[in-house]
């Protein structure tokens, strides 16, 4: 038994050496996150003090007042003054905690005079960002390949904390976030910004940040939102204001020109793009081999929609979704070419081999 204790003790002592992980809350890079950190440390020291007193008295009694040492029990069982004391002292302690907390709470609640507003919408399982004043918007999806998740490939440094397109924000400007959801409740959490806001369907919830240092800040969805809750990270890229202005101007003009250009796809082209897009947008529910998770998430293999002759039915389901189910409308999320590629892929993958090739123009035609 003693040997076992030694072993466990050794493990515990060694563990900090083995561990190069962070053990405390990050200080963060915004006024709010730093104030939260300050509050956190302040309360930690208070509770450490409480624990020192409480544990001190217990350990003292356990050593000094044990029967094997011949201790004889006293008989007292009440003491008005003492009992009054430990009603009053905790009251004083909680007052000491409450006052600075109230101050930070007020600060967090100050949403006025923002320089720009970003709307954040939670979707099963990706984030949508819209720069409301510039008309720029995009989706941000996990970019870690499935091979790393299932262990076929080596995991990279930012495993599960990387996205295809990060949220770009300027430093030193006051950014206002409005957070909502398209389906279930999610929660947008970036520890270094000190922001966690539940994205609740039907509600808009505000937050603000003034980022002090350029850098990349990573976070994750914090509220259970279904199967891939663990796979919808957040990446914020904070850049100096000038760089941000340049970036947003480019995005705004790119968004305008993209609408015109459209070329026809060939079948191999469409299959290649479709496969990648399918894995990214559909694989979570319908599985990468199309088998789904019936009955909630239907299999697309040999379904009448994906193999039937009425292609428009297939296109409509993907574009408009199915109300009141997890099948969302993809028309607002993907462009014509992407939709065409995905649908072509579904109609030819998994030995469907219908030979159908859907063109962006067909999608365009059904957009109205």
């Amino acid at each position: 038994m003693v040997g076992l204790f030694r072993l466990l003790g050794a493990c515990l002592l060694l563990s900090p050496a083995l561990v190069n992980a962070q053990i405390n809350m990050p200080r963060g890079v915004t006024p709010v996150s730093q104030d939260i950190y300050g509050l956190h440390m302040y309360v930690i020291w208070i509770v450490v003090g409480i624990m020192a007193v409480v544990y001190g008295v217990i350990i003292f009694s356990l050593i000094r007042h044990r029967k094997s040492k011949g201790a004889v029990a006293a008989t007292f069982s009440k003491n008005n003054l003492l009992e009054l004391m430990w009603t009053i002292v905790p009251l004083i302690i909680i007052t000491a905690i409450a006052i600075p907390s109230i101050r930070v709470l007020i600060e967090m609640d100050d949403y006025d005079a923002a320089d720009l507003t970003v709307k954040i919408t939670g979707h099963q399982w990706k984030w949508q960002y819209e720069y409301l004043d510039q008309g720029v918007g995009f989706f941000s999806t996990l970019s870690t390949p499935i091979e790393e998740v299932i262990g076929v490939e080596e995991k990279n440094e930012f495993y599960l904390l990387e996205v295809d397109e990060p949220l770009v924000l300027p430093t030193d400007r006051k950014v206002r976030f409005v957070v909502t959801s398209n389906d279930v409740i999610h929660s947008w959490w970036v520890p270094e910004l000190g922001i966690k806001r539940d994205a609740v369907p039907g509600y808009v919830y505000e937050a603000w940040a003034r980022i002090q240092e350029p850098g990349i800040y990573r976070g994750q969805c914090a509220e259970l939102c279904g199967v891939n809750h663990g796979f919808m990270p957040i990446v914020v890229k904070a850049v100096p204001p000038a760089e941000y202005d340049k970036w947003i101007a480019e995005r705004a003009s790119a968004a305008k020109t993209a609408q015109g250009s459209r070329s026809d796809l060939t079948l191999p082209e469409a299959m290649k793009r479709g496969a990648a897009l399918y894995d990214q947008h559909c694989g979570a529910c319908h599985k990468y081999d199309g088998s789904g998770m019936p009955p909630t998430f239907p299999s697309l293999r040999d379904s009448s929609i994906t193999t039937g002759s009425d292609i428009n039915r297939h296109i409509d389901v993907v574009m408009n979704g199915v109300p009141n189910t997890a099948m969302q409308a993809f028309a607002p999320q993907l462009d014509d070419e992407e939709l065409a590629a995905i649908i072509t892929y579904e109609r030819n993958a998994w030995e469907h081999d219908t030979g159908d090739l859907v063109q962006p123009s067909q999608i365009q035609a059904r957009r109205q």
Partner: protein
Amino acid sequence: MANGVPAAAGQQSVPRRVISFITRWTTATNHKDIGTLYLCTALLNLFVGGTLALCIRAELFVPGLQFVEPNFFNTLTTMHGLIMLFGFIMPVAVGFANWLIPMMIGAPDMALPRLNNMSFWLLPSATIMLISTLFMDGGAPNFGWTMYAPLSTTYGPPSTDYMIFAVHMLGLSSIMGSINIITTIFTMRAPGMTWMKLPVFVWTWLVTAFLLIGIMPVLAGAVTMMLFDRNFGTSFFDAAGGGDPLLFQHIFWFFGHPEVYVLALPAFGIISQVIPTFSRKPLFGYRTMVAATILIGILSYIVWAHHMFTSGMPYGAQLYFMLATMLIAVPTGMKVFNWITTMFRGSISFETPMLFSIAFVFMFTFAGCTGVMLAVAPADFQYHDSYFVVAHFHYVLVNGLTFAFIAGAYYWYPKFWGRMYNERLGKWHFWLSTISVNVLFFPQHFLGLAGMPRRIPDYALQFVDFNFISSCGAFVFGFSQLIFVYNMITSRRRGEPASDRVWEGAEGLEWTLSSPPPHHSFQTPPKVD
């Protein structure tokens, strides 16, 4: 168990013995039989829930997906939470109540024995229904034990309706059990057993029973609204239909927070019995103990939205719930101080129940401190829904309450069965459990602070080390509990016969009865002075 079984039982044929065994237990109305049934069911569920927890920890041993799919992972956390709360920790408390309350107040039995039988048998029916969802098409509930809408309504698997029915049955069972306990305490006390002479365990259960009657109908209401949203086209919680997803959270936590104290108060009661015995000194501050119990009961109704700081409450509501939550730390603190002062200048010995109780005081104090941290609303924006919360509530539920119930099991075992448990095995169980449970849950505080969300099947590489340590602790802790079961089973036959008083410092009516106590605890009311 021999009570009431005819002497001729040994000569019956096997099928008859089986039938008489079944009828004996299904028709049992004796408070000790029901108590035993509750305790055995709870123990069984502890192992079911524990197995699920070990599956979770196995998946989280290393990053990447190894054993379970993300959807099944969500099922595991949900079922683990539901089974542990409704199948283990609530029944274990009711089991002790059934065994002890009549003996402690000098009554022959509970006031309503047949109701008692019914409230027990609803429990296994409900748990079986709950567990059966694991084998249904589309899988078991996968939205967490908090069942937040709309994930549980619009997006829930078909088996959710079975879960709702199980929750209804569990609620009914709790309400009937509570009515029974309240009636017993009000009407069956021995002459001279005045309110201020009631053992603290009885007091805590009295308040708990009132809490249960207050909250179980609220939970039933919440799940009924879920049922309607799912099947009958209402939109209580569906924003698209004019409903409100946050309404669900308010209703749920109006049940959920008092529920925490439903679990905690009986455990406080047990600790308040064990510590004086092994300190050989009367409980310090009996009056403040009773006052704190009642105060906790009242305050627990008005702090629920501290679980919802990040869901978008107005500033004023956040302020109010922050302050109210901090206030509830005061009566809880009073209890801890009273236990410590009871030990102070006592004559302490370290039998297994005392060891578990001391560990309880240590680790529950720790959990209380992280609780105060969580109450600080601005900081909760970082803690909420992270592993910090998982660590906090496991320090409450496992290192705290489960340890208290284990202390109670060792403490009254000789009284219940007339034989001592094996002290050596008890100490092994204690040390293995205490060390491993801290290895299991302590590192999770760091994980949460560093940013790991709860309820995720896979994690980023900065969380690798602590998850590994935590999983190691989990397996040692899980398997250590087998020592406990082995000890409880073998000591029934092999243990040394126990005296009536059992412990040198034991005080209270239950210790004046024989060990094991007679079938009808007090045929004639004892004299209390």
